[in-house]
């Protein structure tokens, strides 16, 4: 049986982050910066003289609006909205690495141990996205979040909005910032704990760190059960302040989860193709493929459940969310709306359906890329209508920001991978994982 082949596989592997890779990533990041600069220049000049002048002046004077009692669009909002979209997307992918490790500890799963270092490397990016989100909120919060506007809870103000005032116990700036800091501190802090256990286990062995990891892993799951929902309300849903959906926490978690799984799978496949992780066999790939397939369906289920209820009930305050995306702003969101469903459901669902597909690296890569690109659209479609509306689009700014975030994320993961043996050599379940065989 295949079990006999494993003796030849070495568990001693050191990932090398080559200077060539670093150079390529640096160039990619540089291209991203250039694209954003070009895009910003085009936006600043393309929006008409008045708007451009206003935008340039707006950098230092965020509170300048309000004279007309209305929200005036600044071209810089599109930059901030892009920064926000990418930040929440990569926050999700990063934190899902932690989520994956923790539920594997909770289930005492053995099969995933051999590639555990990959999800373990992902959350290191969290401080970057966390700080960028804080920065974005401080600088451009007023342009993106309706509820942060001055006087919105003051009945005497021209800006007063009774619905938003009713939500102000939760949606107010101090509490929002506290929550944001709490999320990132807890997620990143607990990851640091688990990571240090994992590295110590590599040196010392034994089951002590395994037992401890289960405890802290479960603690994270409890934390994440609450914070994943509230973070979804804060990061995404609060942009459309009047609107709410009770499905939204699940919906965002599902989106993050499947995107994180796709990134993880793609990383494992890529490393294997480059000669690392030879201990990862077809059964591991098959199970990773099943994860991607299953949570593709789960995301679609949540997406559709949210849609169907709102569609059928047809209450104006709920249906506005889909109206904006379907026919609002000149219909510019209709394309991405359908791309979202095609890339996130139909492509991975049909491509990954058979057993052999999940064991074929080329097919896995197609499905993973579809999911990764698709869920960018998912978040883009959630953030853009409420922040930039008819000024949204796909230009140099969008591609530049994606490139910057992607290269930085790959850099962060690669750096983490160099810090330890690529296979957790003293994990008590390693032997089971090396012999993983689901036929």
């Amino acid at each position, binding site marked *: *049986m*295949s079990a006999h082949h494993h003796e030849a596989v070495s568990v001693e592997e050191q990932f090398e982050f080559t200077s060539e890779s670093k150079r390529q990533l640096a160039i990619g990041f540089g291209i991203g910066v250039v694209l954003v600069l070009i895009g910003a220049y085009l936006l600043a000049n393309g929006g008409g003289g008045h708007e451009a002048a206003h935008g340039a002046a707006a950098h230092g004077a965020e509170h300048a609006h309000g004279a007309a009692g209305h929200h005036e669009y600044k071209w810089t909002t599109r930059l901030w909205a892009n920064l926000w979209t990418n930040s929440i997307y990569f926050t999700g992918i990063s934190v899902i690495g932690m989520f994956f490790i923790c539920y594997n500890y909770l289930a005492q799963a053995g099969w995933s141990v051999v590639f555990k270092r990959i999800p373990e490397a992902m959350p290191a990016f969290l401080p970057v996205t966390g700080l960028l989100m804080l920065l974005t909120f401080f600088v451009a919060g007023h342009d993106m979040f309706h509820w942060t506007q001055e006087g919105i809870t003051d009945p005497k103000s021209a800006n007063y909005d009774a619905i938003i005032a009713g939500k102000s116990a939760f949606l107010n700036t101090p509490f929002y910032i506290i929550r944001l800091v709490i999320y990132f501190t807890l997620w990143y802090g607990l990851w640091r704990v688990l990571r240090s256990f994992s590295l110590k286990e590599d040196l010392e062995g034994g089951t002590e760190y395994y037992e401890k990891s289960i405890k802290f892993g479960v603690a994270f799951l409890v934390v994440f059960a609450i914070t994943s929902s509230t973070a979804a309300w804060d990061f995404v849903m609060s942009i459309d302040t009047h609107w709410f959906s009770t499905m939204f926490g699940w919906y965002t978690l599902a989106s993050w989860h499947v995107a994180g799984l796709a990134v993880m799978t793609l990383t494992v496949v890529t490393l294997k193709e480059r000669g690392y992780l030879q201990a990862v066999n077809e059964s591991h790939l098959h199970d990773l493929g099943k994860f991607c397939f299953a949570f593709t369906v789960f995301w679609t289920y949540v997406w559709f459940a949210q849609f169907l209820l709102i*569609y*059928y*009930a047809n209450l104006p305050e709920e249906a506005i969310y889909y109206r904006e995306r379907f026919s609002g702003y000149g219909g510019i969101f209709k394309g991405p709306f359908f791309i979202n469903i095609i890339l996130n459901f139909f492509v991975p669902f049909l491509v990954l359906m058979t057993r052999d597909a999940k064991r074929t690296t080329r097919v896995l890569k197609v499905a993973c890329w579809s999911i990764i690109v698709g869920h960018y659209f998912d978040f883009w479609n959630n953030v853009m209508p409420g922040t930039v509306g008819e000024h949204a689009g796909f230009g140099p700014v969008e591609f530049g920001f994606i490139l910057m975030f992607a290269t930085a994320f790959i850099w962060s993961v690669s750096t983490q991978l160099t810090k330890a043996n690529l296979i957790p050599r003293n994990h008590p379940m390693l032997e089971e994982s090396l012999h993983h*065989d689901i*036929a």
Partner: protein
Amino acid sequence: MAESTGKFLVGVYDDDDVILEAVGKVKQAGVKIHEVYSPFAIHGMDVAIGHPRTRIGIAAFMFGVTGLACGLALILWTMGFDWPMIIGGKDPISFPNYVPVLFEMTVLFTAFGMTFTFFISNGFGPTVKPLLFDPRCTDNKFVMAIDLSKNKLSEAEIATVLKSSGAEEVSVKQV
């Protein structure tokens, strides 16, 4: 599985690892194995025996597609044509409304289809008496059955092979 009658040689083993290795040894000695019976699934056993790959996934897909088609026919005809109804201000024929029905019918047909496939392929039925070479294979023993009519080696030779591969008992059974 297959409907066979005739003389069988039945080897009883005590351990799943032993019988998994025994399958290889018996095959190497040139003996054709009819089937292996076990109280639980043994990883790698179907590959070891050399059974052709299961087509159960294809069957499930076909049942699902049939359910989808039937569901679509049902809801289109009843809701759209035979007695058009406007519910919640939606057109009688509007796809999002249909999705739950289509989904449920797909699942229903697949579930029933797979259940009946399981019954038929295992020869289960209300009046059928299941073929059991040794009832202990439902408890704590592992049983290998050899169809003597399909093997060139003699009964005594095969019995020796089974014994040397780790069988605790070897007996002849007429079915």
